[in-house]
C-alpha cells in the first residue's frame, strides 16, 4: 500500500516535471519571435524606455505604415525588395527543382560507376561558405557585367540549391517502389510516360517540399546577396534589413516590422511542408 502510494507520487511528480520542462523549452524557442512581433507594434519610446515597460501601453501599426509609405517618409523601398526577393527566389527554385528532379531520379534509379563518389562531390560543392564563394563570383560577375541583376542572383541560387534538392528528391524517389514503374512499362508505357504518370505523382509531395526548402534558402540567403547586389534593381529583403541600420544607431521598431514581413511567407510555407521535409531527409537512413 505504502509502496503503491509512493510509486504514484513519483509518477505524478515526473509528469509535472515533464510538463514544466516542455513548457519552458517551448517558451525559450518562441520568445525571441514573439518579442520581435511585439516590438514592431510598440512605439520607439516604449522600446527605449528605462526602466523597461513590460506591459505594452499602446499598440499600433505605425511602423508598417511608415515602411510602406516610401522613401523620405521613414520608409525604405520595401516593395522593390519584396519583388526582387520573390522573382529571384521563385525562378531559381523552379530551375533548381527541375534540375534536381533529373539528378535525383538518376541517383535513385540507375546504377553507374562512381555513383557514391559523385554524390559526395555534389554535396561538397554546397559546403563552400557563401562568403568564400562570393569573392570569385563577384570578380566573374563584375567582368560579365551581371552584378546587381536578377539573372546573376538566380544563377548563383540555382547552384546553391541543386545539391540539396538532389539529395531530397533522391530520397523521395527511392520511397517509390521500382516495381510500379516497371509494371507500367510492361503495360505499354514508355519510360518517360511511366515517370510522369506513375512515379512523379507518387513523389510529388516530396518534390513540393524540396521546392519549398529551396525557396526558403533563397529567401533567407544573405552572404552572397550582400555582395552581389547593389541597388533596388536586385537587392533582396535580407539585404534590405540593413537599411534600418545607420553608423551608430538602429531603428529597432522598423527593423522588427520588416522582420515580420520577411518571416510570414517563410512561416506559412514551412508549416505546409513540415511533415514531408523530415520524411525526405531521413528516408535513406533506415531503409537504405
Amino acid at each position, binding site marked *: 500500500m505504502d509502496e503503491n502510494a509512493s510509486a504514484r507520487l513519483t509518477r505524478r511528480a515526473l509528469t509535472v516535471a515533464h510538463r514544466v520542462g516542455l513548457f519552458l523549452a517551448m517558451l525559450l524557442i*518562441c520568445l525571441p*519571435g514573439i518579442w*520581435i512581433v511585439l516590438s514592431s507594434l510598440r512605439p520607439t519610446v516604449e522600446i527605449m524606455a528605462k526602466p523597461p515597460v513590460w506591459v505594452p501601453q499602446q499598440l499600433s501599426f505605425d511602423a508598417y505604415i511608415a515602411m510602406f509609405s516610401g522613401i523620405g517618409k521613414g520608409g525604405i523601398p520595401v516593395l522593390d525588395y519584396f519583388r526582387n526577393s520573390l522573382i529571384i527566389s521563385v525562378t531559381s527554385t523552379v530551375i533548381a527543382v527541375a534540375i534536381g528532379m533529373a539528378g535525383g531520379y538518376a541517383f535513385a534509379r540507375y546504377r553507374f560507376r562512381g555513383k557514391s563518389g559523385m554524390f559526395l562531390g555534389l554535396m561538397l560543392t554546397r559546403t563552400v*561558405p557563401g562568403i568564400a564563394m562570393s*569573392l*570569385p563570383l563577384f570578380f566573374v560577375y563584375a567582368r560579365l557585367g551581371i552584378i546587381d541583376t536578377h539573372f546573376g542572383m538566380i544563377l548563383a541560387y540555382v547552384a546553391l540549391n541543386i545539391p540539396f534538392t538532389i539529395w531530397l528528391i533522391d530520397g523521395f524517389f527511392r520511397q517509390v517502389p521500382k516495381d510500379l514503374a516497371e509494371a507500367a512499362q510492361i503495360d505499354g508505357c514508355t519510360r518517360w510516360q511511366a515517370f510522369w504518370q506513375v512515379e512523379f505523382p507518387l513523389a510529388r509531395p516530396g518534390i513540393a517540399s524540396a521546392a519549398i526548402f529551396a525557396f526558403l534558402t533563397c529567401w533567407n540567403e544573405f552572404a552572397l546577396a550582400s555582395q552581389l547586389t547593389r541597388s533596388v534593381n536586385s537587392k533582396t529583403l535580407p539585404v534590405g534589413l540593413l537599411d534600418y541600420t545607420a553608423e551608430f544607431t538602429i531603428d529597432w521598431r522598423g527593423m522588427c516590422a520588416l522582420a515580420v514581413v520577411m518571416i510570414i511567407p517563410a512561416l506559412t510555407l514551412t508549416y505546409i511542408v513540415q511533415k514531408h521535409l523530415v520524411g525526405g531527409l531521413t528516408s535513406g537512413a*533506415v531503409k537504405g
Partner: protein
Amino acid sequence: MKGFKPSAPILLLLPAFVVLAAVVLVPLLLSLYSSFTPFRLTRPETFFVLIGFRNYVSILSNPDFWYAFGRTVLLLTVALNLEMLLGLGLAMLVEKATRGQRILRTLMMFPMMFSPILVGFQFKFMFNDNIGLVNNALQSFGITQDAIPWLIESHLAFTAITIAEVWSSTSIFAILILAGLLAMPKEPIEAARVDGCTPWQTFRYVTWPFVMPFAYIAMTIRSLDVARAYDIVKIMTDGGPAGRTELLWTLVGRTAYSDARMGLANAMAYFSILLSIAFTVYFYNKLAAARAQIGAEW
C-alpha cells in the same frame, strides 16, 4: 566517336554538372589562381603577377588568422555539441508528450524559418546592453543592477553568439532525432525493460544506436552550411570588439571587401573551404558507418 551514346544517368545529371561547374568550380579555380597573386580590386593589373606562396606564408604567420581559425573551430565544436544535446533532450520531451504533438512539432520548427541574418538582428536586439530583453529581465528580477555589456565584452560576446547560433539550429537536430524516435519499433524497448534494464541502459544500448544515424543526418546537413554563422556574427558584433569574435568567414569578408585585398582573402577562403569540407566528409563517413551498424543497406 561513332555510335557514342551517353548513358541515361549521365544525361540526367548533366544540367546539374553544368550549372555547378559554371557557378562553383570555375570561380573556385579562378580564386585558387588569384590566391597566388597580390590581386587588389583597386588595381586590376596585379591580377597577372604571380607571387607564389607569399599570400599563404603571410597568412600562416599572421596570429590574427590563427586566432580566427581557432575561434571558428571552437564555435563549431561547442555549438554543434550543444545543439545535439539540446536537440536530443527536446526530441525526447516532445516524444513523451501524449497530447498536442502536432502543435509541439510545429512550434519546435519555429527557429528554422528565421533567416540567419534575422537571428543576428534579433539577438543583437535582445542582448543590447541598454534596451535588450536579457538585461531588462535581469534587472527587473533584481539579479543585477548593472547593464551587462553582452556584445561589448569579448567572452560575453562569444557566449551571446553561441546562444544565437544554438537557438537557430537546435530545431534541425530536434526534428530529425524526433523522426528517428517515432520511426523506432517499440518491441526492443519493451524487451529491454522486461530483461531488467534501467531506463539509462535502455536509452544507451537500445534507443541511442537506433537514433544515431538520424543525429548524423542532422550533423551532415548542418555541416553543409556551417557558414551560416557568418550572417549571425556579421550582424551581432561584426567581429568586434577589437577582433575578439572574428571568425574565419568575417575575416575573409573584411580582407576582401574592406581592404580590397582579394588575393590574400582568397588564400584565407581556401582554409575555410577546407574546414567545411573536413567537417562534411567526417560526418558523412560517420553517417555511413551508423547506417551500416543498424543493418541498413547503403
